[in-house]
């Protein structure tokens, strides 16, 4: 009887773990009204104001397009910061992560489930805004432009998953939501997602480049053609931010190991 032989887990079993883990994470956020409602409703509501009702007259379509890129970027930040970040802080601080770690679960399944959740919600929010732009905001884009915008926004949620992970690794479960709000609201405003940066003082326009949301916003505006720009520097900036946030998260996780709550 060789009980100690290490048997590789079959691929099908591994795939099933990843799927069930992702399903569980989706159900968890979907059934949390405090998450699902603001994540889906707020961006749509703001778009209705800024992209439809207030976007009238000569520059109406341009304003509608601008709001699409800005509020789309704003919308895809939410699942990473609140769903991933706050969820991770709770799991880490209240003991659930300890149970998972002590189980044979592949650790990547836990993280990827949360990334998948964030990207799915990002997809839903951006599709919702695109539909509103097309049907209510009279925006018409080439199919390639719609697709570029959607892909940009969905992939654009990833740096904010990394930021959420970093917040979740440092913050206590009770203080994580406040900390996320403190980062998320000022950052969206200062990155020009709410109103074009031209309306802000010059030093604030310069300051904007230190926020990942600014770079995502630039990419979204470029995708719709409302404000063409060179894409590569912003992509690199987002990759760099992601790496920094992951390093911060790893450091925080070592400093503040999971506890039994």
């Amino acid at each position: 009887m060789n009980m100690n032989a290490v048997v590789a887990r079959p691929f099908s079993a591994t795939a099933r773990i990843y799927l069930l883990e992702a399903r569980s994470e989706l159900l968890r956020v979907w059934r949390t009204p405090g998450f699902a409602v603001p994540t889906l409703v707020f961006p749509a509501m703001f778009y209705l104001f800024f992209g439809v009702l207030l976007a009238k007259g000569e520059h109406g379509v341009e304003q509608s397009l601008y709001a699409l890129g800005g509020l789309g970027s704003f919308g895809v930040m939410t699942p990473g910061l609140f769903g991933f970040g706050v969820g991770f802080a709770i799991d880490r601080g209240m003991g659930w992560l300890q149970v998972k770690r002590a189980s044979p679960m592949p650790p990547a399944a836990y993280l990827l489930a949360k990334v998948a959740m964030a990207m799915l919600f990002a997809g839903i929010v951006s599709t919702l805004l695109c539909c509103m732009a097309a049907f209510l905001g009279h925006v018409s884009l080439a199919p390639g432009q719609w697709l570029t915008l959607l892909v940009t926004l969905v992939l654009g949620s990833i740096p904010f998953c990394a930021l959420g992970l970093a917040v979740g690794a440092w913050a206590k479960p009770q203080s994580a939501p406040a900390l996320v709000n403190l980062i998320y609201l000022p950052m969206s405003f200062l990155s020009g997602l709410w109103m074009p940066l031209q309306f802000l003082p010059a030093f604030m326009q310069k300051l904007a480049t230190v926020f990942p949301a600014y770079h995502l916003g630039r990419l979204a505006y470029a995708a719709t053609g409302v404000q063409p720009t060179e894409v590569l520097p912003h992509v690199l900036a987002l990759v760099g931010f992601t790496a920094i946030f992951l390093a911060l998260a790893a450091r925080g996780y070592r400093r503040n190991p999971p506890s039994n709550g």
Partner: protein
Amino acid sequence: MAQDRPIIARLEGVSKRYGAVQALDGLDLDVRRGEVLAVLGPNGAGKTTSIALLLGLLQPDAGKVTLFDMSPMQRAVRERCGVMLQVSRLPEPITVREHIQLFSSYYPKPLPIEETLVLAGLTEVADRRFGKLSGGQQQRLKFALALCGDPELLFLDEPTAALDVEARRQLWDVIRARVARGTTVLLTTHYLEEADALADRIVVVDHGKLVVAGSPAEIKARSAGRRIRCVTRVSAENVARMAGVKDVSRHGAALEILAARAEPVLRELLSQDPDLSDLEVSGAGLEQAFLALTRQPQKEAA
């Protein structure tokens, strides 16, 4: 009784420190296949730290930790263990069945989900969300997650903490049913009653050290009766010969005597040594006796 069975979990001279707190101080612990071992001790004794080390959630500062002769970090080891920790919160909007389904998928040969539900007494609330369960049901779900992989070794960290008497007895019943099927269990508790109800063997720890080990009957016998502490010139050997004395140990200048009744021993002691001083008599229910066992560092286990 289980001395000839193989050791499947072991701490050897393990120390662990958190800042200024020495959580474990050279602790040795063996778990043999098929036994139910209770690690008993007051809060802060090092029970939870011992479990976290055995599960590979913490690394020891000194000493060695093995599970099934392997490092506890290995997946092959984790697939053979079930774990119930003192978790305050599981994801609340997820139902009992969904939780069990997900956890079962981690293991190579899980129990059928319906069977896990039956074993943990959760069939009726299978489709209820975690957040809507009673305290006892939540605790039984945590037990179900430990059980669903059909483990050889179960870790139960204070399984009935914060439960009322009724819910505690229900959980004991489901644990006993599992033990009857031959699963090895390492249980921590600060209730002597719980250790007595479930365990074959009890290890009492305090301040990260082993205080005493034995069968529940031995531990109770040691702790039943009265505990007398005094400074006297009567030798320990002499005291040990007195009627009704079960145990004598020396702590610096003082003798500590465990006796069925205090009065005859005191009469004898005072007649042999009228200058006897610093007399204390304490006793003697199970819980009190257990406190006495862990109140001061003892060397008598050696």
